[in-house]
């Protein structure tokens, strides 16, 4: 495969494209609203109307406004229809010639769409995820060519470092630094792992990317493999995402056939294979050491770091582990250059981030914005504000994150700003809550989640989350006194400070952040007729009380 061959495939694909393309989202959200039948209806109607060669109905990935699916978009004029039923499909085709369409019409220039960016999702809803040719026609695999044929591995690492890209899996660790570490660590074999476990309940960004544009992730992984010197990649996908697994499997096969993956990528000595590992429903497997244990067929229990995966990962070898969205950013960085990427976002948080906007908000779905965009712009501008009442809080970061009160909606969404107000960026879940949500119950909900998902390896998390859940339940039930509040706070800090892995260390976050901003709701539920004083845990460092982050 040469650049000319790639160009030939792209050219052939473009030449075969009819003047009008009717694109129907068939990703999981729309699929559950019968998108497959809508697509069949569109295809049949086009054939019946004798429009072969003029109009083509195709299956694409997410068109972002998931709550109003199935969504259908007409290219090139951009007309967008929502809630298209299989019965209404023929009218969409008839509508091309000016007939009435029996589906709701959306404004693609409306606030939900116009306020968004398109880097990670640039191909989502445009290319056909099940056809590699379609991705190639959208400049796919050019970045991989450029990397393996025109750049040294060190130059690739350097480019990723200069782009300022940070991990999109939650913690925001600089991606270039991680790549450089894996590249320099010696090992007979090295591995690249894509974390597609997406355990944060209320988030589906990674699923969408995999279902809408799987080749982009594979291309990113292959570039990473070249940069760090790995020949084997794994994508660890959660078992709850069967469609993503299917599309990824198809993509790997198709890329292999064209010599874009496998042995001698683009005719170079570089080999890169990708295999899929399917998760089996354990949140803790999103944690990197647990994930690797799971890939090796074991129980997904975390191990202490160091050693970090970059030193000793899969089978004791240096392993690069990144999130789906992190990899999806890589091809553009290589193709358009790190400076282009670094031009988006803020000083310390570069690029865009995909969020999954859900809960009590008018427009729910997938949202991509430059980092640093104020939270208000996302939930009120793009999201259209709360349905009915007013927004009370926005939850980010899932069970490891916090609840941001309405007063702080002007906070820019970047790693540091969210950290400062007691939440985290997380992987991209953004759940809007209105007055109907009881914040103590929200804290209890997340604690229950962590309690259920604790792997049980270390005591602070295994026993602590159970006790915290009990305390929160007592408060919700109105059976707790002020002493229970003191106990709750003290135990939160204990679990945070002493747990082995990120799950336990962050499990108290939703409780702590609701205590910080919605303390009155807790206090209103307390009984005042009981008062017992209990010893309170104070963390110490060499005998002096340690400084504690709020």
């Amino acid at each position, binding site marked *: 495969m040469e650049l000319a061959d790639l160009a030939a495939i792209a050219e052939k694909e473009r030449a075969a494209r009819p003047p009008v393309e009717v694109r129907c989202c068939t990703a999981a959200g729309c699929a559950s609203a019968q998108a497959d039948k809508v697509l069949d209806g569109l295809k049949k109607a086009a054939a019946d109307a004798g429009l072969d060669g003029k109009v083509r109905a195709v299956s694409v990935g997410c068109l972002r406004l998931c709550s109003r699916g199935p969504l259908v978009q007409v290219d090139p004029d951009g007309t967008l229809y929502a809630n298209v039923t299989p019965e209404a499909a023929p009218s969409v085709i008839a509508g091309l010639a000016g007939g009435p369409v029996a589906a709701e019409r959306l404004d693609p220039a409306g606030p939900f769409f116009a306020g968004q960016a398109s880097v990670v999702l640039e191909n989502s809803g445009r290319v056909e995820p099940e056809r590699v040719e379609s991705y190639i026609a959208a400049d796919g695999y050019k970045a991989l060519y450029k990397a393996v044929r025109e750049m040294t591995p060190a130059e690739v690492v350097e480019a990723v470092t200069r782009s300022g890209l940070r991990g999109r899996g939650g913690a925001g660790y600089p991606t270039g630094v991680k790549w450089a570490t894996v590249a320099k660590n010696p090992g007979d074999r090295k591995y690249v792992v894509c974390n597609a476990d997406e*355990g944060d309940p209320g988030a589906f960004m990674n699923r969408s990317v995999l279902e809408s544009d799987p080749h982009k992730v594979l291309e990113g992984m292959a570039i990473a493999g070249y940069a760090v010197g790995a020949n084997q990649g794994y994508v660890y996908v959660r078992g*709850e995402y069967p469609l993503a697994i299917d599309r990824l499997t198809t993509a790997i096969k198709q890329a292999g056939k064209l010599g874009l993956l496998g042995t001698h990528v683009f005719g170079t000595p570089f080999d890169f294979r990708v295999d899929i590992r399917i998760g089996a429903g354990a949140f803790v497997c999103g944690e990197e050491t647990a994930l690797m244990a799971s890939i*090796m067929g074991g129980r997904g229990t975390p191990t202490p770091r160091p050693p970090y995966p970059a030193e000793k990962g899969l*089978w004791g070898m240096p392993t690069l582990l990144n999130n789906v969205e992190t990899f999806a950013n890589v091809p553009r960085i290589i193709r358009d250059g790190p400076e282009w990427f670094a031009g988006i976002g803020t000083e310390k948080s570069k690029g865009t981030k995909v969020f999954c906007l*859900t809960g009590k908000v008018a427009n729910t779905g997938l949202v991509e914005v430059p980092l640093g965009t104020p939270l208000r712009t996302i939930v009120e501008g793009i999201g259209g504000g709360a349905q009915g009442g007013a927004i009370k809080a926005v939850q980010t970061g899932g069970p490891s994150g916090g609840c941001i009160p309405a007063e702080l909606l002007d906070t820019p969404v970047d790693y540091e700003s969210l950290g400062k107000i007691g939440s985290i960026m997380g992987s991209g879940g953004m759940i809007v809550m209105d007055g109907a949500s009881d914040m103590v119950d929200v804290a209890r909900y997340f604690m229950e989640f962590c309690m259920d998902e604790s792997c049980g390896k270390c005591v602070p998390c295994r026993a602590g989350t159970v006790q915290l859940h009990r305390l929160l339940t007592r408060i919700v039930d109105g059976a707790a006194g002020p002493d229970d509040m003191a106990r709750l706070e003290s135990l939160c800090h204990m679990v945070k400070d002493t747990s082995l892995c990120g799950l336990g260390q962050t499990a108290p976050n939703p409780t702590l952040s609701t205590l910080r901003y919605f303390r009155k709701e807790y206090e209103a539920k307390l009984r005042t007729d009981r008062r017992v004083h209990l010893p309170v845990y104070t963390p110490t460092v060499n005998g002096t009380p340690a400084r504690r982050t709020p």
Partner: protein
Amino acid sequence: MPTAPPAAEARPVPHPSGDKRFKLLEVAMKKHQFRPDALIEVLHAAQQLFGYLELDLLLFVARHLKLPPSRVYGVATFYHFFALKPRGRHTCVVCTGTACYVKGADGLLAALRREAGVGPGETTPDDNLSVLTARCIGACGIAPAVVLDGTVKGHVTADALAAEMKGWVPGGTG
């Protein structure tokens, strides 16, 4: 902790029952060269073939992958996906992820208890229906979501779910 993958040679010990599915499972294991680190893939395949993982089945897997039975049992019980008990003829998975929680997943569980008399993790006495919960199935955009026999349904109301259940739980239990 698993070590480097050993090149285990095939060691076919057919299952005494003569059940064809064991043969298919052996084929699946062979595809992974009987590597112990393919345990999770093998258990996925086994559950797909048999519906759930019986102890006898776990022993069969342990022997073929040359793993101690404790290890196989430990892995099978660690992950929520693996069922060690048979499930009902129909399954209803209610998502209790955050987006669904905010949009009233509790109401759906209450409706199921009312209509079918069973809660999360339970199966009706006539084996018709198992109610399960999941922590986010990635359909948050259409919350609250349920999965009825493998088909995802979004924007579900308690009444709609109760109506669905009428066909599965004859007469209901009150």
